[in-house]
């Protein structure tokens, strides 16, 4: 049994079923994803069947069931981004990182996720890497951006 999960659950005393989503969000924030063990653990705590928890977790886009990479790339596919060419941007990133949306690269450095809308439509197309926003990206500028993160890794 993981101590980290116990610590998270301890912050939700007398939890009722409506605490399920906040707990899952907390777990994902700390661990990066929802592992099978953590879901079982949460189920025991809330006295809910694991199947039910998976049912809820898989319904929402936010929850991941694989470990993300060190740099989590989110590509916005909102309407404004689409009109200004986010499809080509996504293509280029997939080619560059050699992974598809939803996957993590083999060296665990990058993971890629498509999100419905980041809410920065005025600066479309937008991507976000570990919460840092990059505005008005093109298939050209993507290469430099990704390279920058790769270099960061080399320097460390």
């Amino acid at each position, binding site marked *: 049994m993981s101590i980290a999960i116990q610590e998270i659950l301890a912050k939700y005393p007398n939890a*009722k*079923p*409506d*605490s*399920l*989503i*906040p707990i*899952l*969000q907390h777990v994902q924030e700390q661990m990066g994803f929802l592992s099978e063990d953590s879901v079982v653990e949460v189920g025991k705590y809330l006295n809910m069947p694991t199947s039910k928890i998976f*049912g*809820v977790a898989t*319904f*929402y*886009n*936010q*929850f991941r069931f694989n470990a993300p990479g060190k740099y989590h790339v989110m590509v916005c*596919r*909102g*309407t*404004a*981004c*689409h*009109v*200004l060419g986010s499809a080509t941007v996504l293509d280029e990133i997939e080619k560059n990182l050699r992974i598809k949306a939803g996957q993590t690269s083999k060296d665990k450095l990058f993971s890629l996720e498509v*999100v*419905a*809308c*980041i*809410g*920065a*439509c*005025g*600066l*479309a197309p*937008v991507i976000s890497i570990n*919460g840092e*926003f*990059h*505005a008005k990206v093109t298939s050209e500028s993507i290469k430099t951006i990704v390279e920058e993160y790769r270099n960061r890794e080399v320097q460390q």
Partner: protein
Amino acid sequence: MMADKSYLIEHVLNHSEKEQLNPEVLKQLRVLRLEENDKPVIFVGAGTCGLGAGAGLTMKNAKTWLDEHQIDADVIPVGCIGLCSSEPLLDIKLPGKKRISFEKVSGDRVNGILDHVFAGTLPEQPVLGQFKNQESQQEWVGVPYLQDHSFFKPQLRIVLENCGISNPVSIEEYIARDGYRAYLNTLKLFSRREMCDFIEKSGLRGRGGGGFPTGKKWNMALANEADQKYLICNADEGDPGAFMDRAVIEGDPHKLLEGMAIAAYAIGATKAYVYIRAEYPLAIERLVIAIEQARNYGLIGKNIFGTGIDLEIVIKKGAGAFVCGEETALIHSIEGKRGMPRPRPPYPAVSGLFGKPTIINNVETFSNLPTIVNKGADWFSNMGTATSKGTKVFALSGKISLTGLVEIPMGTTIRDIIFKVAGGIPNGKKFKAVQMGGPSGGCVTEVNLDIQIDYESLVKVGAMMGSGGMVVMDEDTCMVDIAKFFMDFIQRESCGKCIPCREGTRRMLEILESITSKPKNRETHEPLARFKGVLQLEKLGKVIKDTSLCGLGQSAPNPVLSTLTWFRNEYEEHVFDKKCRAGVCQNLRVYTIDVENCTGCTVCAKKCPTNAIIGGRKQPHFIIPDKCISCGACEEACNFNAVKVS
């Protein structure tokens, strides 16, 4: 002396009328509003959009500059003023001078601007304007007023009043801008029923999309006796292309809290939730701070200002499901279940969260309330059209010169918004359509640009108000592709509960995919199938509209039906001519090799994933059309510009 909590409570919040405040207090408030300052203040527009454009570096460089020059000044991150395309924005307020705004202040431009301004001169570029009010302060000579800028002049800012201007995480500044007076007056001067009637009289309608009269909804909840009632703020802005809720919360979180507090009192709720997207971390952060500050001032909590009224406000982070914008789905999500809608009635106002009467309103609706209470129901209902009162915030994006947030009075024409406020279409391109209302809405074309915006007129032309996203498209946008984009979105976001929406949207997507993909085999019935598809689209759309359970399904076919109405010729071109006039649908592109330019280097043949290119070394190459999948790899590979697309 800076006015602190006890000073503000005693001298400002305990007075119902602004006119009762004495001159000394008014001066303190001007200081708090940073209109009269002893040391210089630098404001940086640091909403999510500003940060995306590089405001972080701008702020850092400004601080470094101040350190280097040993100048004591405040650097304050503010929200977004709405002019996203000019980000990052930097304002400077020197003591005794009016506040002045600069646009596109990237990190490297900071030093130049500060050098000039602190020396009392102006840099050549890029002054946006100076603030018009602040009468006691000296003007910058030759600088236009910000309020006269073509982007701001037609606007009427009620909800966005303080966004980008005031410090969002300072309750003192909010109080100095008349904040929380409306709430305290509501508690002291209005009964619950009077408040509900007052808002009904003002004509305010829900800004989240449906446009249901807010006061009427409240009266329904008020009429239901219950030991516990709930209020929910819907900030789950899932509609791609809309970002006003984010901007309002990032720029002025206290206005939302005050609006919610007024509504909670009116319906008799003691617990309120803000259901906000987890994708908006900055908005959540500022909201948490604002709630803490309001609690510290005793504006939230038990026995508020001795009136015996209690209110608790809790933040619930959404987990990313578009359907949770629907009332009953949102309620299920807060209860910790899958966010699936249920049939109505009973309406949430009768039986909502945990089976108790619940009112759900949108961020913009709540943010309108404080000003309506302060200025009166008649003031509000005098603005707008016969059926839609007040203002509406729109998020402008897409192929348009100035992108951002605008708040305009109802009844303005769409043409004015696009061509006057936002400066029209860039690069000399032609306007094609504006998509309004997101995945539930439709397109407005050239012929309908002169309609006056209100809830009814938009529905009449096949679009809808929605949450107010306006995505502008020019001639380079393919309307079939847009329809496909929305269908793909809806199909993924359909919760799966009812069959018309779950299965129907998928079939519609398949039809759209079929007409935008390369015809595979001419001998089969495929051409016929493509043709029939368009006929089916209309029929399918109508069935989905009529039979779906919730608003998401009922409006899901709108983007397709709307583009079918206005751009039928584009659909026909895709079906019969297998051509996309905008060149967006990649699969319909035809690639050929120009014999004149081809040197026979064989690079393209090596790159081609389907071996569709033939030709010997140093001989011109050819593409076999039946094998080509239009991936474009040859065009990218060719160094001699020999691959042509049509």
